[in-house]
């Protein structure tokens, strides 16, 4: 019989910092350039070249550490991690080891299972390695060193997560926070966020941790969740069969949906860490840390809470609107411009997000400002145009730089509220459908909608439906 187990998960997340330049030289840290065009003596590891720390990368790492509630150390030390690999030009990676930038943070995440506070063990800075290209030269491996020296932070959690859903929620929350801070774009496809998961299981009630495995090659949030499920099942089967879990590094195979062990050679490294003699210890005085703390923006959790309280939004709306800082800013500007908050929320979550999705971006990428949008929604609110026409106007607004009012005017989209014209259309409809009029008068109430529809159609959608309703009732 199978025992009942609980799952214990810790995550190691590598995040690329959004700096223009690399961590130790002034080459551009951009993605997608031609191979080996963003390189210099420093990131190529040429004889005699020396690293110089990019202060802007430190600022970003500092913001991330503070946002995750970490204690930032006034002195941290860069270290060399020594190993041979063709994508590692110096034969060592400059990272932080014994004395990292920050330790002891926490992040609370919410899932259907409830809230979970995940402790952050440490955050340290390090440089990225280059990339091996297996498809450029037939039968050979090429090396692209554009990525070598790109700044990263590694965020390591304590083993506090208890389910794949919590791991996913943690990563989503982390991504939101880092996006809010402009620390990283966390784009997993471009490799600016990479995750390794440490997974173990133990019988429910046990206090000691089981043997863990490290699962690598997780290229999306759903891959993280799927791989953990698979690995947990594998470990359960082992324990149920009376076999031990072996501590090892596993690679997730997305196509087959399994994990396979890395060759032991790949993991049997003795990295021989020692303090990097080319860089003095990184000193951050209290004032710089405090200034960074003061300049942190409102973070997603706080903003969600405030949207519910201040704007009376449903929790769901608040969650969707605050998923990115740009969208939340847009909503807030719109609501503060006098638009009804729920109406603003509906428009942002509906038409705007739909238009943005079509363009593969967020609401903030649309060429429509919150001010433009407020003008449009005012026209809807005062009945100048209908809700449906509003969507059409919005679509036109994204295609030109005309304002809502200009579009309504130029395209003749205003609703007709003129009683004379409305009466004439109603008269025409009643006259054209004597049968339906008779049936309605005999009690067939559902035909009312038929008359409204006919009038609207006759008006080519411009009739104000509320007025049509009122007038039709009296005429019928």
């Amino acid at each position, binding site marked *: 019989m199978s025992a009942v187990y609980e799952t214990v998960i810790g995550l190691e997340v590598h995040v690329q910092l959004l700096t223009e330049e690399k961590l130790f030289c002034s080459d551009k840290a951009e993605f997608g350039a031609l191979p080996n065009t963003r390189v210099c003596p420093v990131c190529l590891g040429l*004889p005699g070249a020396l690293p110089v720390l990019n202060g802007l990368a430190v600022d970003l790492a500092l913001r991330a550490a503070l946002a995750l509630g970490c204690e930032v150390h006034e002195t941290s030390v860069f270290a060399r991690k020594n190993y041979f690999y063709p994508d590692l*030009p110096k034969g060592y990676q400059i990272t932080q080891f014994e004395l990292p930038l920050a330790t002891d943070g926490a992040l609370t995440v919410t899932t259907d299972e409830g809230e979970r506070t995940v402790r952050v063990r440490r955050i340290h800075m390090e440089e990225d390695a280059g990339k091996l290209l297996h498809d450029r030269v037939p039968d050979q491996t090429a090396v692209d060193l554009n990525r070598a020296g790109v700044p990263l932070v590694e965020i390591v959690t304590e083993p506090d997560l208890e389910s794949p859903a919590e791991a996913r929620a943690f990563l989503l929350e982390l991504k939101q926070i880092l996006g809010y801070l402009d620390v990283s774009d966390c784009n997993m496809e471009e490799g600016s966020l990479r995750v390794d998961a440490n997974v173990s299981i133990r019988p429910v009630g046990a206090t000691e941790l089981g043997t863990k495995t490290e699962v690598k090659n997780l290229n999306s949030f759903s891959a993280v969740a799927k791989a953990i499920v698979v690995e947990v099942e594998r470990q359960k089967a082992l324990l149920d069969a009376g076999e031990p879990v072996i501590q090892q590094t596993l690679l997730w195979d997305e196509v087959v949906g399994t994990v396979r062990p890395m060759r032991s050679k790949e993991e049997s490294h003795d990295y021989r860490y020692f303090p990097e003699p080319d860089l003095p210890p990184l000193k951050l005085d209290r004032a710089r840390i405090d200034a960074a703390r003061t300049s942190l923006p409102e973070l997603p959790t706080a903003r969600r809470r405030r949207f519910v309280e201040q704007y009376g939004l449903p929790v769901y709306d608040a969650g969707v609107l605050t998923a990115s800082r740009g969208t939340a800013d847009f909503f807030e500007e719109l609501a503060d411009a006098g638009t009804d908050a729920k109406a603003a929320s509906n428009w942002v979550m509906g038409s705007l997000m739909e238009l943005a999705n079509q363009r593969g971006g967020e609401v903030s990428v649309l060429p429509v400002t919150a001010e433009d949008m407020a003008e449009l929604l005012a026209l809807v609110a005062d009945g100048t145009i209908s809700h449906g026409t509003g969507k059409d106007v919005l679509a036109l607004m994204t295609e030109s730089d005309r304002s809502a009012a200009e579009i309504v005017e130029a395209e003749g989209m205003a609703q007709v509220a003129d009683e004379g014209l409305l009466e004439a259309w109603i008269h025409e409809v009643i006259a054209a459908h004597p049968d339906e009029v008779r049936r309605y008068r005999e009690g067939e109430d559902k035909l009312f909608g038929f008359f409204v529809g006919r009038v609207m159609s006759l008006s080519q959608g411009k009739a104000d439906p509320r007025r049509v309703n009122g007038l039709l009732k009296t005429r019928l």
Partner: protein
Amino acid sequence: MSIREIREAFNAGSGGPEAALEALAKIVRGESGNGSLNAFLCTVPEDALSEQAARAPTGRLGGVPVAVKDNLATSDLCTTCGSKILEGYVSPYEATAVRRLREAGALVVGKTNMDEFAMGSSNENSAFGPVRNPVDLARVPGGSSGGSAAAVAAGYVPVALGSDTGGSVRQPASFCGVVGVKPTYGRISRYGLVAFGSSLDQIGVLSRSVVDAAEVLGVISGHDPRDSTSSEREVPDLVGACSGDVDGLVIGVPEEYFPDTLDVQVRARCEAALERMEAAGATVRRVSLPHTRYAIPTYYVLATAEASSNLARYDGVRYGFRAPEAASAEAVYCRTRSSGFGAEVKRRIILGTYALSAGYYDAYYGRAQRVRERLACEFADVFAGGVDVLFTPTSPTVAFPLGERVADPVSMYLSDVFTVTANLANLPAISVPVGEVGGLPVGGQFIGPAWGESTMFRAAAALERAMEGSA
């Protein structure tokens, strides 16, 4: 000619490339045929040198021919570090120190031979053959800046750059009878100096006179944004310091540097030098630096640990030598490094790798770091106690015969016993000729307090004057 004489002629427009062309001619003559010193690994072609001279600005080193150790990056000449693994390598950029030389008007005539990756004390570890001592061709010039020391001693060039990780400028200066100085760690940018032991490496200067060393050191010193370990401290007037007197100067003489085993004649020359300093007005005070006895093991743990990491980049992937017909990345590494590095370099990589290994780190690297700190404190205490500068022999012996110590690395390591402490404690030190034993030069070493180059140059120049008076 002195730097001042060459500069004055050049800057006045009457010099042109003459001094440099003459130096080049001497090198070409001296380096050909039997009895060649093998001091140079490459030299600049004559027409290129003339062009260089035509473009060279007037300045503190206007028209001065300079030889540069082959572990400093130069964009027009080889940078091989005396190693097969970098044979034919030309750097796409220049070391800051070399750039500053050129900006001051100096003309780089060639790159000097050296122990491979600066690992050695005799220059016998060069992949391109040993350098001979111009004083006695059967003897070593010292190392690892043996080529630079020989080039200056032979009169090819008035000055040369070297590098000093544990005595690699001072010991060959002593063996060849020239001046050799290594400043405080951080005084000169290491950008472009191919790393051996990064926390110990400093560029140094070899010259025929103390004031010429001061001239060059003044030009290449000072903060460089490309080297985070270079200091922002202002560079003092070192040339001016050379004309200061030593009246009242307190010279500390550490007993540990005059052990019973010290060569009697070397001791006698050093004691005689001290007497001359006293005659010039200085006071001699006997002091003790007891942690000196741990210096050699401490140095060889730290330097090799850093070297094991610094030399990892020579893997045959991007530049330099690559072993042919290697079928996998691992085979490329293995064969390239096995056949590209010489025996001493491999020995030190293995030693350093061991010292950093899991389970041994604390016992070796960790402990060595603590001894290093203790040693630095001990020096600081002596200076705080009223000593202005320390004086010691530079090396326990005079130049030894070629081949004598090749088979015994430990005896070779022990020849660094008086020089490694200045590197471990980050202090400036200079070797000055103090006479001869059987026709072979003896060097005396002044060690100054951190950033105390002025005092050190004042003492060294005074000793030089006092020695001239003796000949």
